[in-house]
């Protein structure tokens, strides 16, 4: 079942980069769910204040404090009643994109319908993995420092009236490529006094594939790579097109009259037709060489004396950077109309012949997203002239350096990443703070 638009604009490719295959999927609507109750975050404080009022009332016998104690007890009773009836008629459906890109927003929404007669306030919707409320720390895509997610995405709905349906958006920005499996959705509320928190857990399985980080490739790089592929190759050496003059041949029945070369026909005495060339888009043959993890020194910043500088990236980081560079090249080439071919050396991955189609591009990106760097095949590759090799070490765009190990191929080293992309590596948060006049709180802004 599809949901929403058929295309999704992703990240900083706002104008033309469309993942046609990035279709959002809506999971199956779940009505049931397990309910649980716990003392809310403010419950302890509430009980404490109530106890203080009761103690003061007993100690001083001040009747107004007995009133106050009664009000607090009434509030607790209302909280309990609200917890009993809240979330009872809730239907939750997760709407998640099939694909996303690391570092970019993964569209993750929840369609929530309240079929109960009681409105719901301050509804929190959270993804959960593993057992218990803290299970995501041990299992799931948010467990561990190198997990794709930094934590379970959470959405918040302030109000959901009786019979109303709303969509809540959970900010989800995967940090790394790979697959993100969703297990269940937990909705909770502790309205009105944070006294009792009621939770309902809905088992809804889903999966999203996160592409590598996509960068904007420098315009000159692709132009250079296309030129290296051969300028003459831009037009096919066969007739049938409509671009430029290719040659003459004898007239065949069915040829349009406007293709008849009348002068030559008059000269020869039989009909002669003109043939025109067919344009052929440029081709980019990418080879991603991940056969070996490069040494750390390969990623060092080259200093004035040619020695590695202080910024040293690990081999695995360089490999990820190479994968991102390959994915970025694929996207950029697709945007420019290039036909792209891809071979991955090392990890098990299918090879793609040169083609230009959104599905073709998406399949290549899926392959790159799914690369398992722990299982590699050390078989030697066979690069040929015109191939563009992306490898984690240090390389050179042009000219091709013979004897580098990649034959006559053009080598793009991931260690020289900043030469190829406009956005610098080491993508970090850019945060600026300012004081809000109301609360003096800190609001964070920033991003690429």
């Amino acid at each position, binding site marked *: 079942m599809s949901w929403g638009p058929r295309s999704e604009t992703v990240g900083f490719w706002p104008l033309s980069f469309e993942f046609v295959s990035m279709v959002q999927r809506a999971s199956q609507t779940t009505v049931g769910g397990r309910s649980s109750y716990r003392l809310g975050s*403010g419950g302890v*404080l509430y009980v404490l204040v109530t106890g*203080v009022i009761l103690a*003061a*009332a007993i*100690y*001083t*016998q*001040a*009747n*107004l*404090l*007995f*009133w*106050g*104690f009664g*009000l607090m*007890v*009434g509030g607790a*009773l*209302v909280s309990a009643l609200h917890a009993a009836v809240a979330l009872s008629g809730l239907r939750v459906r997760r709407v998640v994109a099939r694909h996303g890109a690391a570092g970019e927003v993964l569209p993750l929404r929840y369609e929530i319908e309240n079929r109960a007669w009681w*409105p719901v*306030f*301050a509804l*929190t919707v959270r993804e959960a993995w593993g057992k218990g409320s803290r299970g995501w720390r041990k299992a799931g895509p*948010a467990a561990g420092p190198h997990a794709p997610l*930094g*934590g*379970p*995405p*959470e*959405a*918040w709905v*302030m*109000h959901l*009236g*009786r*019979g*109303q349906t709303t969509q809540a958006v*959970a*900010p989800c*920005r995967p940090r790394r490529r790979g697959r993100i499996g969703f297990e269940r959705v937990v909705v909770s*509320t*502790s*309205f*009105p*006094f*944070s006294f009792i928190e009621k939770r309902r857990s809905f088992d809804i399985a889903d999966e999203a594939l996160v592409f590598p980080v996509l960068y904007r490739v420098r315009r000159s790089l692709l132009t250079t790579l296309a030129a290296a592929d051969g300028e003459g190759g831009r037009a096919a050496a066969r007739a049938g097109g409509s671009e430029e003059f290719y040659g003459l041949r004898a007239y065949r029945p069915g040829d349009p009259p406007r293709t008849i070369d009348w002068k030559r026909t008059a000269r020869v005495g039989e009909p002669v037709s003109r043939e025109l060339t067919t344009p052929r888009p440029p081709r980019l043959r990418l080879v991603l060489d991940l056969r070996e993890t490069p040494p750390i020194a390969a990623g060092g910043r080259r200093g004035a004396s040619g020695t590695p500088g202080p910024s040293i990236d690990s081999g695995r980081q360089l490999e990820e950077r190479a994968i991102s560079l390959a994915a970025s090249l694929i996207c950029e080439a697709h945007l420019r109309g290039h036909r792209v071919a891809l071979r991955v050396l090392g990890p098990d991955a299918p090879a793609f012949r040169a083609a230009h189609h959104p599905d073709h591009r998406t399949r290549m990106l899926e392959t790159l997203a799914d690369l398992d760097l722990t299982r590699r095949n050390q078989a030697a590759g066979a690069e040929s002239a015109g191939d563009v090799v992306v490898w984690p070490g240090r390389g050179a765009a042009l000219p091709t350096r013979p004897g580098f190990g990649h034959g006559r191929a053009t080598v793009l080293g991931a260690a020289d990443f900043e030469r190829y992309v406009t956005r610098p590596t080491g*993508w*970090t*948060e850019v*945060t600026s703070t300012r*004081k809000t*006049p*109301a*609360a*003096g*709180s800190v609001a964070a*802004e*920033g991003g690429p």
Partner: protein
Amino acid sequence: MNILQLFHRLVYAQVLLGITASCMAERNPGLLLAAGAVGAMSWYVTEGPRSRTIPRWAVNAGALGAVAVLAFELTTRRADVVAAMGHFTMALQLLMLYARKSDREYAQLLVLSLLQMIGASVLSVSMIYGVFLAAYCVLALATALLFHLSASAERVHQANRRAAAGGPAPPRPATVAGPAARRHLRRLGLVIAAVSGGVAVAVFLAVPRTGKTSLDLGGATSGAAPQAGFTETVRLGAGPIGSGSREPLLNLTVRSRGQNIGWENDPWLVRGAALDAYDTQNHTWYRSPFALASDRVFDVRQFGRTPHDDVAPPPDPGNRYTAEIALRDTRQRVLFGVVATPMRLGSSGFHLLGFGSDGLGAFALSPIDQQMRATDPILGPLTYQIDWPVTRPHAARRDGIGRPPGIDELDPDLTATALGRPPAADPRTPSPAAPPARDHADGRRVIDRQNYARLWEVEPPRYRRLAQTVLRQAGLERDPEARHTPDDLRAAAALADHLRRRYAYDLDNPPARAGADPTSVFLFESRRGHCELFAAALVGLCRSVGIPARMVTGFHAGEFNTLGGYYVVRPTHAHAWAEVDAGPGVGWVTLDPTPGDEVRAIHRTPDGLLAGLRQAYEHVEFAWIRLVVAFDQRTRQDVLQSVGQTFRETRRGGAQRLDDLIAAVRRLPALGLRRPEALVMLLCAAGLLLAGFVAARQVLARRRRLARLRIDRLPAAERRGLGRRLGFYLRMLDLLERHGYRRPAWQSPAAFAAELAEANPLRFDPVVALTDTFYEVRYGDRPLDPERRQRVRAHLKQLEASFGRTTG
């Protein structure tokens, strides 16, 4: 409406309201002015155009300063605990108002404000404070709801920020509440308020009271200005005692045989302290140590069960007065008695027969002067009941029943001789008869049993001459050495009458010259003065001729609240009079030498609209104090009994009605249909059933119609109007369905109309037009005005005609 902004405003308002209420409870206008100004300025400073806040270290330093001030107040100035804690929490709140606030600080601010209101609730009895408290509760409820919303949104935002560490900050959850959210929030608030209020009433009634605490939480030493008026000592020459404030001090309800006998023109004297000793140096009347030592401590519950066993034998239960005295906010330990306003021959002195109170565990009573005192400080309001006999001094019984016995009628252990039964020994009770009398070093006589209320050391010959002159004019003689004579009451009455007739009542009398005794100046020179001088003069004259007499201070209760049926006693009603011991068989008699007409004129019930409004307000406030602030075990039992009785009666009545109905139904077959009333009854029942069926059918049809229009989940008000206006679209659908064109549930009206128009533009053009009108009304909020209605009718007619042409 952004709930964050509204929440900030509500917190600010709640804190300021708490500070205001606390200052009001403490009766400290200066503190209110200062704290209110500082608090109000914080909004401009922190939320104004500059939006500045003080740094965290300054807040911490200020908090340390507040702790130091708290310690100083508690130790050095010995201020009360509650007021000091109130100042402390107030200082912390003011500091935090100027600080940068996150949710944690807001929670602290709200808790501090709540604690401050708890303290203020202990201090205050005023109804105005009750109004403030109610407003505070409403505000606190709204603030708590909004705080929960904003805090949960912030928590989610922070969780998402943590999850997005290393990336750009995620957007904050939208905290703008739409109309529906606001409406539901208001309704939920009302539900919470109703349920909480109901539970609060139940808790208030159900929780038993244990009486007042013995800990002095500051009721006697708070910053309230002392109320002038009644004092336990009277210093002559220091101005009249009846010059205090107009705030009600106590309410008095007098009953006889269960009936309220209070009346507008029937004043009573509220008896406070009996002062038997006079300090000639300081011109001060006070209660002698001999009388003080005679105080005996009684358990209130035991005294209430056997009200007179320890003091006097029981008179006829019908011949007693009962008074309920509601002290509003007393700051002293004296418990007041009540005596009738004396006539010419006076009225019987106060003689306690019964005492009851839930707010007191024990009280002290002296058999010598019948003065009552609380053994523990009275904190806040207190209600107690007293009984005393209906007797007249000249008609007193010789057996001593129902009158205060004179000092000579008491046994050495100070019990009434008529009773002849010693009271239970109390370790706290000193023995007044034991110590031998020994004069003071400065020559003053020590008061003992023999000379109690008899000493007069201010120009005794001069006083005696005047008294004997007055008595001779009245045809009486009195031997100053005689202990009692049968004419003592008439002699004292003649002296009082002389003062009333020959001396002028004046509140503005000039002070006595230095060294002169104010009583002598009044008696022999100025001949005008206030009630204390009249009472002191009568006591002096009586004592000079050997009649025991003492001064009594209290109030002249003459302002009657007709709404509540009680007397309102204010500090301005303070009064003084005298009691004389008329000898065995008569006992102590109340005599008021002050001219009665002038006293009544001063203490009369004010008239006019404002007075009426004030009376109404005071009545409401009294009800507030009696039913809420001073709610005690007795009131609780009364309310519970009343509720139980009402419930039982309702249950009995309901059961009876149900039984009657069942019996009537059982009798129906016997009645038969021949009887016209049975037929009418059956027809009515059938009509009711039919009407119910039709109504149910209509309701179901309406629900189906709304469901077809898919507006059944809209708010009720919006739903009703739309269901009526969009009826034409349902008629169009019905018409189409009758001819085989059914709109699938998944298809929108526009798509359905487009599909039909594409198939047959000529026939289904009205469908497109009607669908456009549907969208205008449903989503464009357009009314179905006469023009549209006419178009709709025309389109429906055209559509129907097109089908008719085809089928025909």
